[in-house]
């Protein structure tokens, strides 16, 4: 056997143990769109004002750092009321739902999320005038090597 073939087998083995079980309930582009619509209702989703900062390529999908900031004066009259984050291919489309207001001073949320696969992440901000703004990003998730057997 060539060395390359050996390596391939090694990688294939490593990949198998990190795969999630194939699950009919996995979020798809349609469930992603439906989950967003459940938040926005009939209101249009406008691009802009939202900045979604997430690395384009991550070495492991178990903890992907993400920052959402929204351009807003955050005054009583004009502020962000909510920030929602969705994903395309995890088993469920919802990632989180944050409620904000003028007491925050700045519309910002940082957290770390799980991404089961290479996929799109979408952030939606709701403002006090009832408008919805959004930004999306594609994240490539590579797999860890030399993981341990789960059994």
């Amino acid at each position: 056997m060539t060395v390359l073939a050996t390596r391939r087998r090694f990688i294939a083995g490593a990949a198998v143990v990190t795969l999630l079980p194939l699950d009919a309930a996995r979020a798809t582009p349609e469930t992603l769109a439906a989950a967003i619509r459940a938040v926005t209702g009939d209101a249009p989703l406008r691009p802009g004002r939202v900045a979604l900062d997430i690395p384009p390529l991550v070495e492991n999908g178990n903890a992907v750092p993400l920052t959402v900031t929204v351009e807003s004066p955050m005054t009583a009259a004009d502020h962000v009321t909510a920030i929602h984050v969705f994903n395309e291919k995890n088993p469920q489309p919802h990632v989180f739902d944050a409620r904000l207001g003028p007491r925050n001073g700045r519309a910002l949320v940082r957290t770390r999320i799980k991404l089961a696969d290479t996929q799109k992440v979408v952030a939606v901000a709701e403002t006090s005038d009832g408008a919805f703004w959004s930004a999306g990003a594609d994240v490539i998730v590579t797999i860890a090597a030399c993981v341990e057997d789960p059994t």
Partner: protein
Amino acid sequence: MNKRSLALALGAVFFASLAAAQGGADRRRSGYQDMGPALQKMQDDDTANPAMLFVQAGEALWKQKVGAADKACADCHTTASMKGVAARYPAIPAGADKPVDLEGRINLCRTTQQKAEPLRPESDDLLQLTAWVALQSRGDPIAPPDDPRMAAVRAEGERLFTERQGQLNLSCAACHDANAGKKLGGATIPQGHPTGYPLYRLEWQTLGSLKRRLRNCLIGMRAEPYDYNAPEYVALEAYLMERARGMTMDAPAVRP
């Protein structure tokens, strides 16, 4: 099966990248240097590094009186006295004839000084205490002891590192010496330096020891991992520390 096909595709470039030429300069790089900026930032920021949760718990354990002796680590040791300690283990403790790693040294104090049960390998308490002790050596150069008895231990470690084993007939050196810097699946093969242990591995979603890391590589090689208390780990660790002599300790690190 997206991940799998991606892994196979990337696997094909395993040998496509160029090997670093062996020059006079120090070409050693830590696993930290092989990570992307997002993970480097996660490690560098103590308010974001999840390993700091374990360090905090370790500090509480350090002060807790336990065992028949009803003594805390802090009753016998100052925090300052732990500086540089993690950078020189494995070592042979005074009066002993066998080397122990840092976890083994802490367990020696558990049994002989505190008169308590040893902590289980990879248990939360042992990892937390080790993380707290290791943090005191942050920024220190790795400095294995000059003890001449350690030469044989390191030689055994080097033998284990260079010997082919497992169903894939690979050696540690085949990856970490000959192919470091190249891609294996999506991961960059690091040179395999022990600068950051115990560390928070995203794959584990928790803190783990250098032993656990070595076990993962052994499983990846389709080799039977040694028992947790096996001397092989201590020998491998001693060799890895010698190989990394002078490199900077950055425990508790973050790795993918």
